[in-house]
């Protein structure tokens, strides 16, 4: 077990591509995405799962602590422009070795 950081981002689904790109550029290559998240934030005053374009995504990415700085630098302008929130916390990772034979 070793310490890593957990990045949680909640944003409108149309931002998903841009956010994953910027995570990727910051060196964070793994992520999980939960779709169809309803919510209420500063910007939009209502539950907004109702139409196609207004649902949020919840993105989780775990990464090494030293990647947090570039991640934050990359994400902040995006979130400022299009909305969304980002939180960071501490977790322990259980290392696992993958068994893919060939790539």
């Amino acid at each position, binding site marked *: 077990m070793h310490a890593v950081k957990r990045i949680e981002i909640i944003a409108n689904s149309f931002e998903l591509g841009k956010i994953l790109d910027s995570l990727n550029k910051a060196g964070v290559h793994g992520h999980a995405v939960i779709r169809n998240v309803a919510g209420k934030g500063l910007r939009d*005053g*209502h539950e907004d799962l*109702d139409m196609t374009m207004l649902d949020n995504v919840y993105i989780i990415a775990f990464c090494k602590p030293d990647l947090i700085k570039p991640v934050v630098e990359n994400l902040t302008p995006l979130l400022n422009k299009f*909305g969304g929130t980002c939180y960071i916390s501490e977790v322990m990772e259980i290392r696992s070795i993958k068994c893919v034979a060939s790539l």
Partner: protein
Amino acid sequence: MDGSLIISNILNPPILFFFLGMTAVLVKSDLEIPPPVPKLLSLYLLFAIGFKGGVELIKSGITQEVALTLLAAMLMACFVPIYTFFILKLKLDNYDAAAIAATYGSISAVTFITASAFLTELGIAFDGYMVAALALMESPAIIVGLILVNLFTVDEKRELAWSEVLKEAFLNSSVFLLVGSLLIGLLSGEHGWKVMEPFAQGLFYGMLTFFLLDMGLVAARRIKDLQKTGVFLISFAILIPILNAGIGLLIAKLIGMPQGNALLFAVLCASASYIAVPAAIRITVPEANPSLYVSTALAVTFPFNIIVGIPLYLYGIELLWR
């Protein structure tokens, strides 16, 4: 108009289910159409209307009448956002004005479908190529809207967004599926229609009914947003559709459209987009406030059109075409 048109419109199952959806929200029932079913219904409706339109377009061919209609459609799609922008600027900032203008310059496919169902009910003929007009009117307003934002605001970074704007305008899923289905309808013709008919035609009213049930739920949930939008926008959302439909009818009369087509054209002019344009605007003009441009289109203009507007515009046609 002796009200009988409105009543025969209201007694249609799809419209009644729209009311049922609104009622469910008002009485706080927990009725809901679970996601992603509404999205599926809207994919189905776009597919069915596009495919059928394509099949009928290949039958009718592209005559001068068709060309004139499509031209008129393009014109209105560019003109409406421009003039409404200046009306909206009286009360709103440039971003919101452009966003709402784009919304009203574009169209609502479901309003169109409801109108064509209404015509079918009344036995008034209309042409399949009106779907091509629908398809043509979806995108231009998005582009006009962004041009207006660029002209009236100073923002360096906006330049970069053009490729994205074009993508949003012409490749968003609604436009893409509608145009794609239209083209496939053109290619597969009468023969393709025969095998698809039970799906594309048989289910049509039922799917529309369920979709309108959901729209009733959504529109009613949005009603509380209207408090924030204020009287100006609410009147805008009722009067501008009537005005646009009026202009549309005059143009239709001028170029000699048959009555059925004229109604559909008026409905296209009068309707506002609540899916494709808001999605595009959210990305290209993030400064605009979504609850303004979505709620007016969805909670005022959409119900107004399907309940009062469609029979009203038909009444206008009866007067004008007499």
